[in-house]
């Protein structure tokens, strides 16, 4: 188990998050290249590292980083700040592009579901502000759940293999892996509810 996974630093501040939302808004409103360059400089290195952890070579990771950031540019107007953080949104774009590349499943399954989640126009400004801090909340909540549950939750996103494969690699029964994931996910959701 990677020690680095267990002690995650909360390196992104709330001010930064509002900044990401603002950059996206500027890209959407006026094709602002300077805002895009700043967004690229923040997210591209993180995305590359994330993809390498998922098993990509440096070259494959950079191809996907490029493709993802171009999609961020062209889809900026579709980002709804009330529905989650910029980093969550960028993760979903990268995930879908990666699925297309691996042709393991259909990314259209995910893009189709976005239509069922049309932005809620009744959400007030307060709600949006609360939502923009979600990454920090999730990071804090992750730090509070038992280590064995946290490790498996993180592995389920970092490892690009089915849960049965994670179980084999860890030498644990699949049932144990799943029940730890469930417990971790349930505890995390409870903690997030308390924070909001």
């Amino acid at each position, binding site marked *: 188990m990677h020690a680095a996974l267990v002690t995650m*630093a909360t390196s*992104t501040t709330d001010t930064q998050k509002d900044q990401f939302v603002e950059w996206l808004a500027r890209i959407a409103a006026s094709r602002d290249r300077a805002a*895009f*360059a700043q967004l*690229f*400089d923040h*997210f*591209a290195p*993180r*995305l*590359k*590292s*994330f993809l390498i952890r998922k098993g990509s070579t440096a070259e494959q990771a*950079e191809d996907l*980083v*490029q493709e993802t*950031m*171009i*999609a961020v*540019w*062209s*889809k900026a107007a579709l980002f709804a700040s009330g*529905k989650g*953080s910029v*980093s*969550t949104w*960028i*993760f*979903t774009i990268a*995930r*879908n592009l*990666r*699925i297309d590349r691996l042709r393991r*499943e259909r990314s*259209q*399954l995910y893009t*189709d*579901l976005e239509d*069922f*989640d049309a932005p809620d126009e009744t959400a007030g400004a307060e709600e949006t502000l609360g939502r923009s801090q*979600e990454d*920090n909340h*999730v*990071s804090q909540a992750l730090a509070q759940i038992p280590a064995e549950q946290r490790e498996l*939750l*993180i592995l*389920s*996103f*970092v490892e*690009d293999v*089915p*849960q*049965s494969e994670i179980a084999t690699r860890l030498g644990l029964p*699949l*049932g144990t892996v*799943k029940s730890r994931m*469930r417990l971790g*996910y*349930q505890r*995390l959701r409870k903690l997030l509810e308390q924070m909001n």
Partner: protein
Amino acid sequence: MKISHHLDDATILAFAAGTVGEAHGVLAAAHISLCPLCRSRVKSAEQIAGAILADESEASVSDQCRAATLASLDAILQAKPAQPKPKSDLPLALSRILGDVSLRDIKWKTKAPGVAVFDVPLSKGTSTKLKMLRLGHGRTMPEHGHGGDEITLILKGSYHDRFGRFAPGDVADLDHEIEHQPIVDSDEDCICVVAFETKAKYKTLLAKLAQPFVGI
């Protein structure tokens, strides 16, 4: 549609991570499109990934990658328009594969009195299968232990087993070691879609005999 049976947390996490098999992905998406609760659960799971990405360490990106990305922006004006949705009463995840097909147009293959199946085509190379089943009133699926992850989505009619009653929109997302014996309790046929792993082993001799017969 009142939904009482939902996807397992482990399935929600795998779906959000993009590591679920093809058949299970189609089936999960079909349920999620019908179920606001599971949609919000997928969102929370994606937020975990977002937090991991936000806290990720930085790998240095080559100047070439940065320059190539910035240079290609001019050529891109708009995101690609979404593909029109097929005209169908099936969940979108299924009609994307089957096209403008309604539930009554399915080309069923009768396997036994009151038992018909239809294979939903998937990509070559997937180790999962997606099968539609049409079962008459009182029909019982052979008792089977699950050799792999299996998810069932009810589209029409209903059945019950020891976990309760399963009606349209409900999913039975069962762990691999769970055994159950669903019995159709609706007057009309029960139509469901099952995603399973092709390596799944059937347990009882009866089921082994019925497997080539029923075709699942």
